[in-house]
């Protein structure tokens, strides 16, 4: 994949996406005709003559198209795609795509090994609910493109919430929040200072009620 070598990771990502989705576009002149992905796409997408926008804002039509692409791909296309797919969905990919989406206040916290929850906790802010939703959907789109067959699908949690959305990608968890709710919850503080967090220490101590009787329950 010679066209991929000299590009920066960000544009490499976008180019590979473009290669997959836009079969007959001006990309042919850019790539010296050696983009195997585009070649394979050209053979069976004769009926699809329309040019899709580079990164469409409505996700439903495009994801349908992507799904059909997976279904119709013959063995040769799959082989080429595996050879050509650049990288796994790592932290770098996620951070790059969030930066591309103009995410505000991107914060990545490495979760300590003892907590077997995830490896990285990422918190990002957005300008508005629409922005958060767009970022989340784009992240899912890129994940779907880069994932292998054995990786599970990922869903957006909190779709109907206005200010807080979550995505759990196995080894990483992303939280998309509005700045106001970010101030309220202070997730970065909690995940960096695990037990030394000030909100935790401000919580009043649990007191047993006066009429508490401790009875030892023997389970079967």
């Amino acid at each position: 994949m010679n066209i991929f070598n000299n590009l920066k990771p960000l544009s490499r990502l976008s180019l590979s996406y473009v290669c997959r989705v836009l079969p007959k576009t001006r990309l042919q002149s850019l790539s010296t005709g050696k983009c195997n992905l585009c070649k394979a796409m050209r053979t069976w997408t004769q009926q699809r003559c329309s040019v899709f926008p580079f990164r469409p804002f409505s996700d439903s039509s495009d994801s349908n198209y992507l799904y059909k692409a997976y279904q119709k791909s013959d063995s040769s296309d799959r082989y080429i795609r595996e050879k050509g797919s650049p990288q796994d969905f790592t932290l770098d990919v996620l951070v790059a795509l969030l930066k591309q989406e103009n995410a505000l206040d991107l914060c990545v916290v490495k979760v300590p090994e003892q907590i077997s929850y995830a490896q990285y906790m990422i918190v990002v802010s957005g300008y508005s609910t629409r922005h958060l939703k767009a970022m989340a959907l784009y992240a899912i789109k890129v994940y779907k493109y880069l994932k292998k067959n054995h990786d599970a699908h990922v869903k957006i949690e909190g779709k109907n919430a206005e200010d807080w959305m979550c995505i759990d990608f196995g080894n990483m968890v992303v939280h998309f929040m509005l700045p106001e709710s970010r101030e309220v919850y202070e997730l970065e503080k909690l995940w960096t200072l695990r037990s030394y967090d000030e909100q935790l220490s401000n919580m009043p101590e649990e007191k047993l009620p006066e009429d508490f009787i401790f009875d030892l329950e023997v389970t079967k």
Partner: protein
Amino acid sequence: MGFLIETSIKVQQRTFRASSAAAAIQKMTRVRVVDNSSLGNTPYHKAPRVIHVYTKNGIGKVGDKVLLAIKGQKKKALIVGHKMPGDRMTPRFDSNNVVLIEESGNPTGTRIRVPIPTQLRSMDGDYSKVLAIASSFV
């Protein structure tokens, strides 16, 4: 023959009371709110009680949403631990723990002190937010 008479007398003396199957959290159970929300922590003369369980049968296990009556108001909550033993290799708690939740699914409190079971992560549902504000896992 005498033996048979003895057993029949014993059978008559035995009284059975058929009660419902032992369940984890159902209507009218008193629960413990474990987050640091003001609604859950201010004292009230009645303990928070479950008034509805949002499952097919009226039994709530870890990860199920319930409706609580707290301080004279209705509030949705998520069950994060119950006293009834569950699957093997899942934690059993000494109290029925619950985390208050809004209609949107956002937790009402901002921190949870009590350990939260990690099986919530693999369950179907929106639990990442509750896991994000938890301070310890079990």
